[in-house]
């Protein structure tokens, strides 16, 4: 196992973010146990896995954004050191789907796990040059503004990562 991957997993543990390692074959089962329906999603764009035929509804609508308990998206990259998901915005709605529902389930390919922020610069550089946008999302939304730490404010209260091993 790559060191980046094991670092990533321990970073997620430290953040108390759940994760499941799965294969394309086990994907549907892993997804089913990770989501809290109703769920809304955007196509993952990863060969060998799909949201078709799962309980995840596509395409996203404003109502689904408001009412779904779970949003399912891909994370284009992940950063092992901090347990960060690099959520790449797209016209399908990855950004809002990862943000609005109280649970975010992110699918990341094992080979997309990078060691640190610096190593994500190339990925970002190419995207920005193209007019693209990305978000580093680490752990769950939180605030201390009401006098104590509370999780889940404008963003999700729970995050679960499906780490996809490739054949």
């Amino acid at each position, binding site marked *: 196992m790559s060191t980046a991957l094991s670092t990533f997993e321990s970073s997620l543990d430290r953040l108390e973010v759940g994760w499941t390692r799965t294969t394309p074959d086990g994907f549907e089962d892993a997804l089913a146990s990770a989501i809290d329906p109703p769920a809304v999603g955007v196509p993952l764009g990863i060969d060998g896995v799909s949201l078709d035929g799962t309980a995840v509804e596509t*395409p*996203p*609508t*404003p*109502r689904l*954004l*408001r009412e779904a308990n779970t949003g399912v998206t891909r994370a284009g990259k992940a950063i092992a*050191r*901090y347990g*960060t998901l690099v959520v790449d*915005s*797209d*016209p*399908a*709605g*990855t*950004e*809002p789907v990862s*943000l*609005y529902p109280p649970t975010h389930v992110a699918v990341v390919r094992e080979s997309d796990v990078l060691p640190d*922020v*610096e190593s994500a*610069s190339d990925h*970002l*550089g190419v*995207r*920005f*040059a193209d*007019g*693209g*946008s*990305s*978000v*580093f*999302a*680490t*752990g*769950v*939304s*939180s*605030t*201390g*503004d*009401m*006098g*104590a*730490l*509370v999780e*889940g*404010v*404008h*963003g*999700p209260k729970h995050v679960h990562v499906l780490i996809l091993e490739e054949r």
Partner: protein
Amino acid sequence: MSAERRRKAEKIRHLLETEGDAVHENITHMNAERYDAIERFDDFEALREEARAIKEDAIADLPALVEQVRESVEANGGHLYVADDAADANRYITDVADSKDADTLVKSKSMTSEEIEMNDALEAAGVDVWETDLGEFVLQVADEGPSHLIGPSLHRSREDVADLFNEVFDPEEPFETAEELTAFARDYLGEKIHAADMGMTGANFVLADSGTITLVTNEGNARKTAVTPDTHVAVTGVEKILPSVEELQPFVELISKTATGQDISQYVSMFTPPVDSPTIDFENPDDPLGSGDGEREFHLVLIDNGRLDMREDDQLKETLYCIRCGACANSCGNFQHVGGHAFGGETYTGGIATGWEAGLRGEEAADEFNDLCTGCSRCVNACPVKIDIPWINTVVRDRLNGDATPSEFEFLVEGLTPDAEDSVDLQKRLFGNFGTLAELGSKTAPLSNWTAKLGPVRSLMDEYLGVSRERDLPQFQRETLVEWFESRRPRAPNADATRKVLLYPDAYTNYVLVERGKAAVRVLEALGAHVELASPIESGRAPLSQGMIDTASEQADAVAADLEPYLEAGFDVAVIEPSDLAAFRREYEYLLPEAAHDRLAENSYDVMEYVYGLLENGADGSTLAAPEEPVAYHSHCQQRTLGVEAYTEAVLEDHGFDVVTSDVECCGMAGSFGYKSEYYELSMDVGEDLYEQFADEDDRTLVASGTSCTEQMGDLFGRDVTHPVELLDPGP
């Protein structure tokens, strides 16, 4: 106390009573997290260097970078507007709102929008503005200003917020917990976001080559604000531009660690607007996202408002490197106790507020709070871009001094002040010329000590000089350290000395705390060094702390001239008072030619650092006094900034002392600060933290390195306080 001072003291007392506890509790927590996050992060120092260098270049290239941003934003289909000032910015933003027929705007926290009072401008134009950051929302509901750069409502406790919300929103079940309050605010603001016509954010960084803006938040509100409404306006200072994503990385890593003590913030959004995320039309809930006819529109408003002039100001320029993390405020002993409503101007707060307010609104804007900076320098190592914040405070203080009008009570400090800077306020002249005062006091001791104790004299001093009646004044000694040293026999060099050291006698050591000077001489000699005493010329520390830079410069020149022949002859310089060492190593950089400063900085040592070096190099420690009692040691803030306090601890521990040390930021006294009538109470309140740390240590000898700490601890504990070198004194 004069009316002006009384008013200041009252304001501070009021804040101590109303906001002090919540501020103190919240900042203590944040600081613990911050120190841990930095401790865990090996690259901190290297990245600070890198970030600093990037900012230096970016500010130097700013005009070109602005043009590059214009090209990239326009190439993406957005609009760039560079606003000269607040009115210009507000006019542009309200025009955009007008062109969209906007009734409501949701906003993510932005200090720049506070700076231009954008909410008022929009409200006046008929646009409802909603703050979506929960801290800002609390303030909006309470109708008050932020008290902290990143924790705007840090001065409010949960109970406060609950009372406020219960009163304003009158819920069926009164709010109690933070969860209930958060859930309510989230739902309430969620509806506002869904319905808003426009979204407004700040921008922590703007990338010139791609037009990407970076937003750093924990709540996720900036993301919702930026991508939910179809029109997004980002408002930020023109100084936030970085060339490209390559230069972004150090800042992403640093900002969260120095701001909140998180390894990384929950959301670092890097949007290249207009973003390609689909538009969201909550009025047609069942149509797929993006199917409304909404088009995304983006405006980036970069605000000058004095910043481009600051670039031309050699001293204030560094302020533009600031990334608004708030670490300087958090590391400040005074800020920890009174918070931002005392420690800031119209918008910005904390250590760097002086630079910001002076740059954006003129020096007078900083007059009100600039004195709260004691120059302790604890913020220096906290700043991720290595801004010398105390120096900026000193410079602004100096510029403000120049404007003060001479007073009719001149005669009180007659003879104490050199001609330079003679329009400076009396209190400042008194404290700024401590050396002259001490010399006089010593010549006339014990009469001077006796008169100084008299009630009427203290009343006069309080009224006209602002010297607090509560403080014990220094007791001047009849025999100075220099006189004692000169009277010693033999005066021949120590024949087998391996090192030659010049001891620097600061005014306190020479005239007041003479024993610590004698102890230093005897300890160094016992360890085999040949000791000479420098002339008792003030280092300039005292005038510097009053912002009297000319006087300090003259003194620095005199000290350098006095020490020069010794340095030439291979002497090392040992310094007893940490703030003087800090002057030699830090502030002299601004006061002396580079070569002279470098040589002095490299060859001067804290006296205990020097003792450590001698012992490490084989000197025989058994010649020193054996440890007798366990000690409670408080090092000195400037000593800690220089990183030399560890030597004292090491020497004492290696020598067999049982040592406990304090870790509070500051004793609260910091030179003259604790003597000033208007700050006496705050000074004692800050000192309370130190008091608590040593409250149960009553069987230990109290030990402090700095004079101010010595005096403050004397007042706090009512016991004698010893300099560490005295513990090692082998005696006559």
